């Protein structure tokens, strides 16, 4: 259904949410070898499976697809490459004050928004102020610059951004589409108008976004400020770009195989082989950074409050084999809470935990779940070992529902009675903030190790007043300390060290059951070339071109 995906809350936790889009790095092309080099002209049609129906404006919306839809039209101050390095874009250079609380940006000259407004320091200030303005009701961006104090226009081409405390993830956040710079003129409109149309300085200009249909763009004439690392400079090759919304997997795939669209997002894993075997088509994948698709046990109440029971569930079920079989190798089994492509990933976790049903049985015995009832489930004081899993079937993309059923069957073998509860989003939303569950599942993309803070910091525990992603409800002083330590330093090696400690601790605590690493599966016809990737594994179209018939 809406998959549709119109529920921003449901959406965010279901991992449809992500900090999308950064610099267009044209080095990785999605579609095969170019026969004769890029040609100018033509239209590229791309079909996606979800849409930002509630709001297009990335300053307001948390949906990854809002980032995807607006990235073609919005530039950022800086860009981020696949290795996590920051490059100039609308800002040509920047300095960070010794106390790391002030960032000073020098802005590029001669940039114009597509409505004719000139880009300057005032525009940057207007954008950052717009994001944090309570009236904007920003569901994501504002949270990512939470210590923001204000911006100061030094001169037309210099702007200073002040923070209340050192804040190292600022530049990588700034590189995302959620901090795309919009025309200050268009920001003067009411929020609702911005939800329909955003105006920026990007390589494409939005023609129209029609809910349930898609979005169309045309080339921004005179565009000459692509980020460093893009495949070319100047205007786009394409005359027009069209993104269609086709929610049904089989229909989206059919539209690709029959040549009705040039490319699609989310090739169904089960069809990857079939598409690869088709000589007219290609599939390219890109590993998404941030939180893997994981299961999070409630560490504060229920059976999973006992660490031994958590370990038994994690080690007594062969997650890796189930993932490999179900997805035909399209997704790799996860080893830790965050994906290998995330800055700060700890490789030593790989192989650290292994499938061991005998050890799981011992742990359950130790934890007192030593009895067995007639149906083979473990019991303790006559009570069955029941796990209530808050699972949202209607949002289960990529056969996550089938996966869940297989896990349920495997869990039964080691004595767990796994029950799915909360059928609708609303029921789920009632239970989640209260911690009324034993297990929840989601993926959560973000190209920074700081995503660990969203997943495991005490301040991220969801409550009625504050929606957080710490579904394990883990409150660990050491973890909090390491996470805030990582915010205070821009030394990448030091940050990686701290993030590794967090990953090891949550693994030791069995506060997360890693499942699989999400791969963006992009299908394209052979006539489409140059579809790029931004570091958060979403496609970009600045370097894209189509072979003319």
């Amino acid at each position, binding site marked *: 259904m809406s998959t549709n995906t119109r529920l921003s809350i449901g959406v965010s936790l279901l991992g449809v949410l992500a900090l999308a889009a950064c610099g267009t790095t044209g080095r990785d092309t999605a579609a095969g070898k170019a026969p004769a080099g890029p040609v100018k002209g033509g239209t590229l049609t791309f079909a996606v499976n979800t849409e930002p129906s509630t709001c297009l404006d990335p300053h307001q919306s948390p949906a990854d697809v809002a980032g995807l839809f607006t990235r073609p039209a919005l530039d950022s101050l800086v860009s981020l490459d696949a290795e996590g390095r920051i490059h100039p874009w609308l800002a040509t250079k920047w300095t960070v004050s010794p106390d790391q609380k002030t960032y000073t940006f020098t802005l590029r000259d001669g940039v114009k928004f597509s409505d004719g407004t000139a880009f300057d320091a005032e525009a940057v200030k207007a954008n950052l102020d717009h994001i944090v303005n309570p009236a904007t009701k920003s569901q994501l961006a504002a949270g990512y610059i939470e210590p923001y104090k204000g911006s100061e226009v030094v001169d037309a081409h210099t702007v200073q951004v002040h923070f209340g405390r050192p804040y190292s993830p600022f530049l990588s956040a700034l590189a995302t589409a959620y901090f795309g710079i919009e025309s200050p003129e268009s920001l003067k409109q009411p929020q*609702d108008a911005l939800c329909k149309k955003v105006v920026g300085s990007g390589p494409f200009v939005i023609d129209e976004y029609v809910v349930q249909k898609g979005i169309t763009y045309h080339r921004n004439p005179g565009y000459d400020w692509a980020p460093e690392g893009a495949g070319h400079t100047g205007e786009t090759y394409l005359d027009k770009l069209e993104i269609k919304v086709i929610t049904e997997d089989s229909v989206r795939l059919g539209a690709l195989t*029959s040549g009705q669209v040039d490319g699609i997002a989310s090739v169904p894993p089960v069809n990857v082989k079939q598409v690869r075997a088709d000589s007219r088509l290609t599939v390219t994948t890109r590993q998404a950074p941030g939180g893997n698709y994981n299961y999070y046990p409630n560490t504060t109440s229920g059976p999973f409050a006992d660490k031994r029971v958590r370990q038994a569930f994690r080690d007594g079920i062969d997650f890796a084999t189930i993932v490999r079989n179900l997805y035909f190798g399209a997704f790799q089994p996860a080893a830790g809470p965050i994906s290998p492509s995330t800055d700060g990933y700890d490789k030593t976790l790989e192989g650290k935990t292994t499938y061991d049903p005998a050890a799981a049985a011992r742990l359950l015995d130790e934890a007192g779940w030593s009895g067995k009832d007639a149906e083979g489930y473990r019991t303790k004081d006559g009570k069955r070992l029941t796990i209530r899993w808050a699972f949202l079937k209607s949002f289960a993309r990529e056969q996550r529902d089938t996966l869940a059923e297989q896990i349920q069957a495997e869990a039964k073998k080691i004595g767990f009675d796994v029950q799915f509860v909360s059928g609708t989003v609303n029921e789920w939303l009632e239970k989640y903030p209260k911690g009324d569950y034993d297990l929840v599942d989601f993926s959560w993309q973000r190209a920074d190790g700081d995503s660990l803070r969203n997943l495991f910091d005490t301040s991220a525990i969801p409550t009625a007043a504050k929606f957080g992603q710490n579904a394990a409800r883990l409150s660990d002083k050491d973890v909090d300390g390491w996470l805030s330590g990582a915010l205070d330093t821009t030394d990448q090696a030091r940050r990686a060290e701290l993030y590794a400690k967090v990953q090891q601790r949550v693994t030791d605590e069995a506060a997360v059951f890693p499942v699989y690493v999400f791969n963006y599966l992009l299908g394209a016809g052979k006539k489409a070339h140059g579809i790029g990737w931004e570091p958060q594994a979403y496609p970009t179209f600045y370097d894209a071109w189509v072979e003319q018939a």
Partner: protein
Amino acid sequence: MTAVAVPATRARARVVRPVLVRLGTSVLVLWGAVTVAFAGLHLTPGNVVDLLIGSSTVTPEVRARIITDYGLDRPLPAQYAAYLGRVLHGDLGQSYQLHQSVASAIGEQVGSSVQLMLASFVLAVVVSVTVAVLTAGRRWARAVFSGIELVGISIPSFWAGILLLTVFSFGLGIFPATGGDGPESLVLPSVAMAIPVVATLSQVLREGLELTLEEPFVLTARSRGMSDLGVRLRHALRHALLPTVTLAGWMVSFLFGGAVIIESVFSRQGIGRLTLAAVGNKDLPVVMGVVLIASLLYVVINILLDLLYLAIDPRLRGA
């Protein structure tokens, strides 16, 4: 002059009165529909404020302001009364989720749905009348078509849609798979939507035709040398149409419900998908707006059907 005028007035009164009664009950139906929708949605779990705020982390002050802005702090009866009052003024309110007024949200989508429903309605009527007239009382044709109809009723619209797409769009490339531009994009979805309707309608029509064909006046007509097809079209069809017309009211609501699936499969814009999303999001104003529009449509169709009865069956007009 008067001799003619009086019966004319009487005849008109016979038409007008039931219509007025209809209008009265219609208002009740509409009021009931809005009330039930309002009550039902408030009884489902989930907090509207949380939905409005989304996944953002806001201060209690912001939360309080949103509650005041949307009038969510007022008692339920007050919210209900306010809503009814606005509806009477033609104001369907503001969507919680879509950042636009309900009227404009529905307005953007309704055209596409109406096109689809009209196309499948016309298609269903033409096909089922043709099938029924050609197969009624004819053993072999009847058996074959009854079988096909049974399949047509049984298959889910979703599956029919995918099947049509696979053959005619992905395979033969005759029609576009998605979208709502131009008549060619209307063909497959309206066929998919019409299938179960045709299957039901032609059965009811055929049964009516077969009953009528047994009537003595049919024998009279035949004895005057009228062709079989002529008898079926000129005499029997008119009789058989009445129960079918009653079904037409059901058909409209069926098509309205079917739009949810068909619009999703064919990635069309429309009320169906709007409703689906609004229900999931607990977007009360939009759901109630759709309920209102749907009930209004249902009521209007039924009034039109009453008039159609009069046109089809002269006995209802007669003294």
